[in-house]
């Protein structure tokens, strides 16, 4: 009953004219981010964080959240019409979506993707409403040692799922931790690794790191091959047939379940949900041989899964303060910049904000549905601009975005440096997501560790003597062990082949 009351309060917040406008802006920008090459949701969200300084916190967070789920749909447009995935989560949609476009059914594919995204996104928010409050209440009972172990567990899952090599994920993750330790120590105010530079006293700016590691490095990778304007397949009727709708219902339902549960796991990329959904649809289909030839089930399942994933990945951040993906880490930094700490306390201290954002997810999904179908021709026109020109403008916006987060040219240099470092790390096949997750979580981790050790007068075994903390740590070790075993057997398998 209390949940329904809170949700009604959330709707009253989200339906205010200005918050509706922020949701609309976020959806449009998010779709644009999904459509444009070389700019992912994490970078797209980070670029707009400086804008939120001038907005009320609820409006800012509503807009930034809309960017994430908007980008999931935007990626589908380029995938279906151009055979170029705008986002990693749309890669699998190329298989059938573009084939449908070639057969003159691109409009139906995009409509089903939009309907599926709405369906998955909305059901996933229902899950969020049901699961988040009890989880937050439970999390409130955790003390510093339990919280420390919980963060360690979250990081282990995140790093384990991030890449093919667990060691590479761990290395990048710890590098992210060390980067976040640069600057004044949060507990005692002592400078660390600043080399006497006053610019480093506040540490590295998170937005500069995100834009550098994800935005600039992505553009550099894309520039390795000649960039030219993509040729869009012509778009005919947008209305799907009754048969399309009927055949899409089952895949959309299964996609929602897959996306929702995988979205809860830290480090689980949205693309994984889409791929698993596609594999499941192929497995349950009576005609698996037709997959890849332009079959509607191959669009409905993955497209529903990625939006369900996008919405459910907000649960760990809202309830535990643990971001499950780089874009969630960016969103979490926006909370922190606005003076809010994501986690269980947020439900108690800022119920209007939490429930306002949750209600805006429903509204945002509806906006996406209404907005995107008529706007498809506009996005196609945007894609006709040669990519070389688009990249120049995107780079210029990134530079200003990097600067405006702190009004500091030092941050621009940091962003460029991380862009080059990110490019090199990507070439060497290092996953970059763990660095962002650890960067954002390390201050909380350090505070929890400090408080735990103060509680125990310096005795580190407090982490092992409290049962819940011990369970979390055992789980973390088991997870790392399982991922190591999986990686080892994969290497063995490869070498035997």
């Amino acid at each position, binding site marked *: 009953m209390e949940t329904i009351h809170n949700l009604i309060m959330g709707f009253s917040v989200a339906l205010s004219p200005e918050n509706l406008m922020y949701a609309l802006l976020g959806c449009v920008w998010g779709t644009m981010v999904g459509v444009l090459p070389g700019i992912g949701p994490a970078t797209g969200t980070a670029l707009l964080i400086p804008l939120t300084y001038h907005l009320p916190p609820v409006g800012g967070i509503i807009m930034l959240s809309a960017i994430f789920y908007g980008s999931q749909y935007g990626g589908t447009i380029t995938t279906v019409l151009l055979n170029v995935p705008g986002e990693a989560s749309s890669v699998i949609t190329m298989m059938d979506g573009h084939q449908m476009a070639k057969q003159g059914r691109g409009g139906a594919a995009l409509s089903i993707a939009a309907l599926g995204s709405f369906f998955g996104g909305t059901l996933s928010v229902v899950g969020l409403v049901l699961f988040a409050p009890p989880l937050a209440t439970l999390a409130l009972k955790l003390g510093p040692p339990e919280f420390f172990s919980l963060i360690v567990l979250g990081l282990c899952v995140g790093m384990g799922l991030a890449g093919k090599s667990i060691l590479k994920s761990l290395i990048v993750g710890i590098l992210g931790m060390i980067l976040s330790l640069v600057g004044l120590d949060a507990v005692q105010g*002592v400078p660390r690794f600043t080399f006497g530079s006053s610019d480093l006293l506040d540490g590295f700016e998170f937005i500069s790191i995100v834009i550098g590691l994800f935005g600039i490095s992505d553009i550099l990778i894309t520039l390795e091959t000649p960039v030219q304007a993509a040729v869009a397949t012509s778009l005919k009727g947008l209305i799907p047939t009754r048969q399309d709708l009927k055949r899409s219902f089952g895949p959309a339902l299964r996609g929602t379940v897959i996306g929702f549960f995988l979205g809860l796991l830290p480090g689980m990329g949205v693309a994984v949900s889409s791929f698993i959904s596609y594999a499941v649809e192929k497995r349950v289909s009576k005609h698996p041989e037709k997959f890849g030839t332009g079959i509607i089930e191959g669009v409905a399942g993955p497209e529903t899964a990625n939006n369900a994933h996008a919405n459910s990945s907000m649960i760990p951040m809202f309830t535990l303060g643990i971001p499950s993906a780089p874009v969630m880490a960016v969103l979490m930094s926006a909370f922190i910049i606005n003076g809010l700490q994501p986690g269980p306390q947020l439900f108690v201290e800022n119920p209007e904000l939490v429930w306002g954002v949750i209600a805006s997810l429903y509204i945002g999904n509806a906006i996406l549905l209404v907005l995107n179908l008529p706007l498809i021709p506009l996005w196609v026109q945007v894609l006709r601009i040669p990519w070389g020109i688009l990249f120049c403008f995107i780079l210029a916006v990134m530079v200003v975005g990097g600067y405006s987060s702190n009004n500091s040219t030092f941050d621009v240099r940091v962003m460029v440096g991380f862009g080059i470092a990110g490019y090199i790390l990507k070439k060497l096949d290092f996953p970059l997501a763990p660095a962002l997750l650890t960067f954002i979580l390390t201050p909380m981790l350090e505070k929890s560790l400090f408080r735990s050790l103060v509680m125990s007068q310096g005795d580190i075994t407090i982490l092992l003597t409290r049962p819940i903390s011990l369970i979390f740590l055992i789980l973390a070790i088991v997870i790392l062990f399982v991922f190591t075993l999986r990686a080892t057997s994969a290497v063995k398998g490869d070498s035997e082949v």
Partner: protein
Amino acid sequence: MRRYYQAAGVIILAFALYVMYESRFGIDYRTEYGPGPGYLPFWCGVFLAAFTLAWLIQITFRPVEGLAANFYPDRGGRMRILSVMVAMILFSIFMTILGFQLTILPFLFCLLLILGRQKILPALVLSVAVGWGLTYIFRNLLDVPLPLSAFDFLSNLGL
């Protein structure tokens, strides 16, 4: 590929050792209240060194996949990447000297010539329009104090 991995591993290992040294001897490891500011960095350094060492052993003694076909970009690709890197580095340096408006102009102009393959006149028009548009949006609408030139005669003109 192995050589590149090993070089990266050695650099990361050296970094980990520096972090360990600095956090043990450069910052307080412990204080009277409990762990000091060097406590967590020290252990991060230890774990980073251990994982990097394990990875170095793994890539040295286990078969490593061959060089990916597209590991080295072709000459055109190298030029594009290098031009973006150089343009961004120069931008970050000259932004404080010349101010934002006068730096974004050549930045966009050069990139439009190289990446956008535009002719001189369209590149010039586009870079002026976009540079002015960005300045207007961020300075006037979003209240971001974009840097002005270090030279008084330019900053007095609002550049």
